[in-house]
């Protein structure tokens, strides 16, 4: 595959940075205890979201999990209603009834996210079935973790997507832990990408912190899906720096070793890439500063908006239980 254009490289870097800054803003503000929602942060895992979503248009669909912030930011979501949702405000994208795990934004093809492990894959396959039935040119991408591979829906979804040759790309972010259970305690084989072969679809295992290789592999998979060649599975091996839920690191609690975390932080998907782009003069330090200021401005504006917005009134409890009623 041809080398990436400087423009693409820049976009990949700044998408990752926007995700990183958004998540870091949450860790900064979380101790204020105003953001009363369980946050599942993706610091350390930004490359897969950026590399995959770079190929998607607004019309394409994306499904995610409880750890969805990165995916949706990469898909282009407006961070204002997003942040307001984290603060449980009426102006939140889900009117304060979804919280961090149930973010929605229809203009970007984000139908919502499921916090039940494995469920989003089936929903994504369903959206892809609709694409086929309506003879549209869209693609669906569904993100999930290594824990979801334990679920029956993983197999049910891959089988049906392959059976009907649906335009869906399965992206597994293997961070080696389901909450605190290591992959080795749950899976007899460390071969997630190979499972694709059982369903007759291409499967590839990637360094999940190498954004360019993810970009290339996702490009092929999405192009194939869009042209009717059927689904693919991409396994991105990466690592989450924070605990399963909340802003803290969890090695203090004994969930994993500090050394393991340090080793992965060395392999940060962003730091090395940024150095590389600066060194190769793809970006200048000045441009970097300008773009970072813009990212921080957007995120700070979103926080201010969220904090100033009113809470939903009590009547909101009874709204939207059923569609078509108030």
């Amino acid at each position, binding site marked *: 595959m041809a080398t990436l254009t400087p423009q693409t490289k820049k976009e990949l870097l700044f998408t990752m940075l926007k995700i990183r800054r958004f998540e870091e803003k949450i860790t900064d503000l979380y101790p204020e205890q105003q953001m009363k929602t369980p946050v599942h942060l993706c610091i350390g895992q930004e490359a897969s979201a950026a590399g995959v979503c770079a190929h998607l248009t607004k019309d394409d669909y994306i499904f995610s999990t409880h750890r969805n912030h990165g995916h949706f930011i990469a898909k282009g979501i407006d961070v204002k209603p997003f942040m307001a949702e984290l603060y449980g405000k009426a102006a939140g994208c889900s009117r304060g009834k979804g919280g961090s795990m149930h973010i929605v934004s229809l203009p970007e093809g984000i*139908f919502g996210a499921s916090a*039940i492990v494995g*469920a989003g894959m089936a929903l994504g396959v369903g*959206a892809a*079935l609709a*694409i086929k039935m309506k003879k549209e040119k869209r693609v669906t991408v569904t993100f999930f973790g290594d824990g979801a591979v334990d679920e*029956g829906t993983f197999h049910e979804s891959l089988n*049906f997507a392959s059976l009907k040759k649906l335009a869906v790309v399965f992206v597994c972010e293997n961070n080696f832990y389901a909450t605190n259970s290591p992959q080795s305690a749950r899976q007899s084989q460390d071969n997630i990408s190979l499972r694709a072969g059982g369903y007759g679809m291409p499967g590839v295992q990637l360094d999940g912190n190498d954004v360019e290789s993810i970009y290339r592999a996702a490009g092929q998979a999405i192009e194939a899906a869009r042209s009717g060649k059927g689904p693919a599975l991409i396994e991105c091996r990466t690592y989450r720096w924070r605990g399963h839920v909340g802003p803290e690191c969890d090695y203090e609690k004994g969930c994993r070793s500090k050394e393991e975390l340090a080793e992965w932080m060395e392999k940060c998907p962003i730091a090395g890439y940024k150095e590389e782009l600066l060194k190769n003069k793809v970006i200048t330090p000045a441009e970097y500063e300008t773009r970072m200021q813009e990212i921080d401005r957007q995120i700070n504006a979103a926080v201010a908006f969220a904090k100033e917005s009113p809470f939903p009134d009590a009547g909101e409890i009874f709204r939207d239980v059923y569609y*078509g009623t108030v």
Partner: protein
Amino acid sequence: MPWTKVYIDKADFENTLAKEGLRGITCREAIREAQEQMLTSDKNVFILGEGVDDAAGIFGTTLGLAQKFGTDRVLDIPVAENGMTGVAIGAAMAGMRPVFVHMRMDFLPMCMDQIINHAAKWCYMTGGKVNIPLVVRSIIGRGWGSAAQHSQALHALFAHIPGLKVVMPATPYDAKGLLVAALKDGNPVMCIEHRWTYDYIGYVPAEIYEVPIGKGLVRKAGKDVTVVALSLMVYEAMRADKTLQAEGIDIEIIDPRSIKPLDEELILDSVKKTGRLVIADVGCKTGGIAAEIIAGIAERTPEILKAPVQRVCLPDTPTPASPALEKEYYPQVQHIVDAVKQTLRTPAGGNKGSFPQDKFDVSVVMPALNEQENIQVAIVNTLKAMADCNIRGEIVAVNDGSTDKTEELIKEISQGDGRVRFIRHEKPKGIGSSFWDGVDVARGDVIVMLPGDNENDPWEIFRYFKLLEHVDIIIPFIFNRQVRSVFRNALSFVYRFIINSTFAVNFNYTNGTVLYRKSVLKELPYRSCGFFFQTDILVRTVKKGYLFSEVPYRLGLRKSGVSKAVSFPSLLQVIKGYLRLVRDYYFHKHEKTRTFTSDSVSAKRYRT
């Protein structure tokens, strides 16, 4: 009406409908036709399920559809119930309208994650941005040793989940109309069919039509006992009716058709009439829909029940296989007959005392017509005043046909406070009727009417409560008349003059928050229902010789809303009431005979 009629055998159908040239088809044909017509009329509708395109065609309910619409729209699927439910939901998010068919309801537990955590919640979790127009058809089996995993009726499980709608048609007309309505609804709807209803015939129009979800139906009107029958039990209840009629027992059969939402009003109205209730369900007893129906009545108007309720349900066991055991397991017509008779066996006088009721000192009757701004404050103030004055009391709020949020606001309080109850008038009946209806359900020994407009200060009247040790009626008069307009005061003066001179009394004020001993009110031979009711009661009781006391009372300023007291219709009511009182007072002298109710202070005073 042909579309409400239930035919329990084919000859029955042929004798009536067929003669009139109306089309009759079976339930299975009606379900098939609904799907065929929806596939034709809406290109986003598709059907998926294990075996939907096979030769048996889901007991005939999908026969020929795959041939007509192709296997792209009538999809046989992998045996992966949960994943495929997720697929159907995802497709629904992206604009499709799937019908997921399960040959056995017992397969639905496989799909619980997707139905409960996803389909039911999605609209809510996304703040209404994404709805899930999904229909899940499932079929309850029965007989031939189908046993514990091929004959379950799990409808109550789904009715428990907010966000789902649940329908259970019994007749061909409803089977088609509810399935069409479900497909057009936009929410996840569980269409639960009973296989044993499939061969019943009934009138079904050839065109597309909808039966509203959440609306029940009286299948047969009657006056003695209400029988709420679900799904297949509608037919069993119709059979029971034949037996019971022969014995002179007239049951009313209600088919709720939907269990979520449930047509509680229809059931309540029927039980108000009959006072006796039997529920025949196709599911197990504990935690079932029958229990929910009973709870609905127990919460609102337990006093209408004249006898303990009877449930005809499946026992709390899995379904056995042997025909000998099946025979014992399933309720038969005779069970319904016996249950109906059981409700009639309760001795006259009903079950008074079986619902423990607290004794109350005072019942505040609080009529309210469109008082959303005032009603909650009025209730809260009244409760506080009772506490302050050390009075055990209750409030009977009377929603006099409000079209605003008055009733919801009352409910909000009454749900958490047993001292607050309410009754409802569908249409405004006036302040007098509201008062009397409140008196009828009041549990207190003393009655006072405090309108829900919060204009009256309850402390002002409760502070005189102790005076009831000496009199039977406490009549307040306004000592701060300056808070009212000159016109209003003048009107009041003229009114008082007319009343006092006509009936030779000397009241300071007759339209206030009068405290009555309830027994005194119960004695009255006539109940004036308009704006004149208070004056009418006072004249009649005082003229009879009941002891009363007039007490000074401070009137507050009106805070919100518009008073309904001074208007042309109320003036007419007052004139009518006045003339009636004149007639009774001057031409029916016997009304003035001094007989007091035994627990009145007056009786004690005059007899000793």
